[in-house]
């Protein structure tokens, strides 16, 4: 295990970069497909941080949580894509600003 020795800092840096990218995607994108993808990116950023931290402390917990996140992400995609299909059918668009039905 000593061949591949990446410092934790680097892992966290990458993870936070990924997180910010995902967040920016959420904030900027209007297409719901991209919003979902950004969400996935953020989830994976968090998962990466867990794995990195787990490796650093030599604990299995990080990978356990990663598995959990993976499951959550899969479920989320399943539901999310279902919603996307419905939105496409109902609004004939994937632009979330157009699909807004709230009064505010």
């Amino acid at each position, binding site marked *: 295990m000593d061949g591949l020795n990446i410092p934790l800092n680097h892992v966290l840096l990458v993870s936070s970069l990924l997180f910010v990218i995902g*967040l920016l995607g959420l*904030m900027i*994108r209007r297409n719901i497909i991209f919003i979902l993808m950004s969400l996935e990116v953020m989830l994976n950023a968090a998962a990466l941080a867990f794995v990195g931290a787990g490796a650093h402390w030599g604990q299995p917990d990080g990978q356990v949580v990663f598995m959990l996140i993976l499951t959550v992400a899969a479920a989320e995609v399943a539901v999310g894509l279902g919603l996307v299909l419905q939105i496409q059918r109902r609004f004939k668009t994937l632009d979330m*600003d157009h699909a807004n039905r*709230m*009064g505010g």
Partner: protein
Amino acid sequence: MRELIWLIPLIPLLSSVTLMLSSGKFPRLLIGLLGVGSVGSAALLTLALGLDFMANPEVLQLTLWTWMQVGSFAPGVAFYFDGLTLVMMSVITGVGFLIHLFSTEFMEDDVSYARYFAYLNMFVAAMLVLVMADNLLLLYLGWEGVGVCSYLLVGFWYQNSANGQAARKAFIVTRIGDTAMALGLLLLFTELGTLNIQSMVGAANESWQVGDTLPLIACLLLLGGAVGKSAQLPLHTWLPDAMAGPTPVSALIHAATMVTAGVYLIARTHGLFLLAPTAMLVVAIIGITTSLIAAFTALMQSDIKRILAYSTISQIGYMFLALGVGAWTAGIFHLMTHAFFKALLFLGSGAIIHCLHHEHNIFKMGGLRSKMPVTFWSFMIGSAALAALPMTSGFFSKDQILLEAYQFPDIGPWLWFAGLCGALLTAMYSFRLVFVVFFGQVKTKPDKDTGWRMALPLSVLCGLSLVGGYFIIPVESVFPMSTGTHPAHWVEYVSISVPLVGLLLAYLIFQSGQLRVDGLVNSAIGKIMRQFWLSGWGIDWLYERLFVRPYYAFASLLKAEPVDAVYGLVVTFNEALNGWLSQSQTGRMRWYITSMVAGLVVLVAVALQLSPEAI
């Protein structure tokens, strides 16, 4: 025998309750029997008690039960019986019985016959409690009780809202006085530790000196109650309006008994008043002022009952004068004789009103002398006694008051002179009434004459008004002896002759017409004065503007509940905040996320700023 004294107020009370529970289903005869019989038996018991007392003049103190006991505050439902109580009880039950009897004829056509006697009996019971109470709290119970009965009876014909107005005025104006009196009770108990009248006066004499401030305040507060009940300045305005009630009620409550309760109160607590000479002076001045003001007003009225009402105010003024100058016995004596002749006059006027289709205006009457002889003689005797013509009962009592007032230090002669002016006016207005109503042209024909149930009480009261002056009231042990010497003879002669002058003037002006006063009356100043006196010196007008209207205005101003407006501000603020914040709910995810991130950044920045060592 004497231990049965509690039966005397109980019998009318039970009769009253029975009548109330009957809800008008009893036959009239039974109602009358109950109403009159209960007071009659109370009168008989009082008579028996009086004979017993004459034989063995010993005061009786009887505690039925302790009303309430909290710490050392333990007023009892307890009676105290001495000569003064006996005089009051005799007047209440005796005159009360006659008036009840009179009422059975006066009210015979009224639908609420039972209600009337229920109230009237209740009044007698409450009045008896008032005079028999051995402590001021029980006295206060009777005091308020008679006030309520007066309210109920003045507003007896409730369908007319003017009657309701008069009844409310009577109750509320007297309540103002009563509240002062209640404060007096609080002060007396707090300072002296008891409300039992005898021990209270004893304690007061031990702990207070003549002229101290505390007895003065206490006496003035009690006086507040007395002027309210007895219709003296400045709380006299309710009495003329109270004439809205049935006339026998006016005779019983507003002439013979309830309105003299103030006099009784002061007489009963004279031991306190002796400690406060200033308060006594106030009593005397209130009395004489009221007496004069009311006498002038009576001279101008045209409603027969209002004349008598103002005359009552004026006569009670004399009693207050007597109390103020320390002529206790004379004051109580005048109370008794006044009860006789004023009840007589009121019942007489009731007979006229009854037989004249409820006519009140004396100028629409006239020539009744031959049509209603019993009533005419009643009025003649009553007016003579009221005017204090020699040898009538009023003469003895009023003369005594004036003589004792003359001997009052410093201002005595002035009080006497003012009293004489009042006596002159009294003679004038009372015989004005007689001449206008009974002589001259017949203007309204009576449709009936009085029946025996009216004639009998009138006759008995005529007798009492004539010979009442020779009664000796057994109060010498109650009051301190008056130590005054006899004044000069001329004082007495003047006192005797003034009413005769008044009678003569009344004859010349209102009967023979030899003395023409039209010019004087119709002159500019005469008109103003006439209007001024007619309206009772504008006091009602003043109170209306000073108290009644501001209170109405205040109440309608507050009706919108200003306090709620403050809570309304909270609501308005919340609604504004709600409107403002709900604008941020756009429904755009991107906007939500961005604001979340921004919020997070701010929070982290603040946290770092606050605790930099966490880094």
